[in-house]
């Protein structure tokens, strides 16, 4: 299919048209972030204008922006590290020392993803309140770890499966311990896979907007909740909203671009490679 050397002229045209249409809202937000609030709502809409950084300055000056951004960073990194620490040993055991129960365990782990968040909203809310984890970063880290754990286990499992067993066996003959084997042989070999798993976990945690909206108010509120606070007011705030949004999505957009191919595996639980 890729070898299809099509000379039909409309294919590039259509391809670029679709790409530009899909990307347009993001592009428009990006452009708007450099306009003044007046220019942002001008009629007719302006494509060419005197760019300004005042919105970015205004957002930075509201010190609270950094509180939210920092919460996003801590929560998504924390949840990702915790998930990797739990998942790597599990994936290692399941891919190299499978038992009769391994397949069942993997599927069962996946099935925990099917529990709709809203079904346990009340119990989780009450649990978080009782344990003092409501509106704390730890609370969200724990929840995101558990949400992403099945995907992380599956993805690392699938990467470990691709490591030739002979390499590990040779190493074992040299008397390496389990830990040494994991640390010095397997992890370096599977590092690209683990990196893209970590990226997927960061992307999913960063963008998660059910628990963050329901379990945080201010102290632990990440960027998803900060942006949501722009939803109510009327008036001239679009340029600032655009600047805040641009900063909120930029790192994740880049992560997504970098790892798009590997993400498919994690997103479909290995069903599509």
């Amino acid at each position, binding site marked *: 299919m890729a070898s299809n050397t099509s000379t039909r002229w409309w294919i590039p045209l259509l391809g670029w048209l679709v790409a530009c249409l899909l990307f347009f*809202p993001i592009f428009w937000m990006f452009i708007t972030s450099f306009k003044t609030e007046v220019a942002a709502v001008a009629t*007719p809409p302006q494509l060419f204008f005197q760019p300004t950084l005042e919105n970015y300055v205004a957002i930075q000056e509201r010190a609270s922006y950094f509180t939210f951004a920092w919460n996003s960073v801590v929560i998504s990194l924390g949840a990702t590290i915790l998930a990797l620490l739990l998942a790597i040993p599990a994936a290692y055991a399941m891919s190299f020392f499978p038992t009769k129960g391994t397949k069942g365990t993997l599927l069962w782990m996946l099935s925990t993803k*099917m529990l709709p968040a809203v079904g*346990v909203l009340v119990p989780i809310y009450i649990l978080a309140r009782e344990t003092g984890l409501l509106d704390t970063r730890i609370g969200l880290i724990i929840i995101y770890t558990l949400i992403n754990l099945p995907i992380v286990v599956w993805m690392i499992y699938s990467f470990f499966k691709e490591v030739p067993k002979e390499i590990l066996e040779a190493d074992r003959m040299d008397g390496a311990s389990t830990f040494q084997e994991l640390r010095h042989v397997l992890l370096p070999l599977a590092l690209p896979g683990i990196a893209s798993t970590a990226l997927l976990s960061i992307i999913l945690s960063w963008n998660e*907007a059910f628990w963050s909206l329901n379990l945080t108010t201010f102290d632990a509120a990440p960027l998803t909740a900060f942006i949501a606070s722009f939803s109510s007011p009327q008036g001239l705030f679009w340029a600032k909203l655009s600047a805040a949004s641009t900063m909120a999505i930029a790192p994740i957009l880049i992560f997504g671009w970098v790892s798009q191919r590997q993400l498919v595996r994690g997103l479909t639980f290995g069903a599509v490679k």
Partner: protein
Amino acid sequence: MTSSIATPSHSPPPKTRARSHRSVPARLLVAPSVIALVLWMVVPLAMAIWFAFQRYNLLIPDNREFVGFANFAYILTDPALWISIGITLVLVVSVLAITIGLGTLCAVLFNQDFAGRGIARVLAISPFFVMPTVSALIWKNMLMHPVNGLFAQITRGLGLGAIDWFADFPLLAIIIIVSWEWMPFALLILLTAIQSLDADQMEAARMDGASATQLFRFVVLPHLSRAIAVVAMIETIFFLTIFAEIFVTTGGGPGLATTNLAYYIYLKALLEFDVGGASAGGLIAVVLANIVAIFLMRSVARNLDT
């Protein structure tokens, strides 16, 4: 001393025997993940079931007692629940149709060779990586706003007047936003699947004189069928609980026009603080999701052996 020199020749057998016992520590390595997930599944679900049979409002916590099936009776006779289930189904089905239909066509398009295809592809999948609150607010304010939104400006410029999306077509507006977010997901997955299509097979079919439509219908589509099924099921799991997009745009309104099951339970739980009713509603959502989950699990399980 001499014995220590003699032992190396004997050492391999005990070592391999030691290795064969590794399934015991292997189980220990899996245990933390399994225990964490068991707790995550069982504790909240058990609590939800427990609460669902109680009259329990967080605002009047002392007035708490066992009420049997009263919460279910109350919630199942609440017209708002059935409206919200209907809206959930409309949302799920229409967004599925749009994302998979367009996603398949776009996957075929982006599989063609053309100048700058890599960049075009990256642009096309970008919406999937935008956080839902940002997506929803871009569309609400900058595109669909009835006065200053780009759509309104364009249609007014053409002398057509402006559409007040969130007042007149609120559900359609939500459908458009969610489709924009998830079409790139379908595109990304289906494009990956299409690329595993055997080039020789395509060439052979073309040699036999198959037209482009026939190629799509009889070669590409059957090849994609399983990937499409996987996309449909994963999307369904997410679409059953669309929340952030509704939260920041319509707040479930006007009236109940965009209140899906997730939003209905949220209203019951965190605005009315009706723990019992919200838990009963939550269990209904769990049952709905499980029906989908069974099909997804079957499909994934089939793939695990290959």
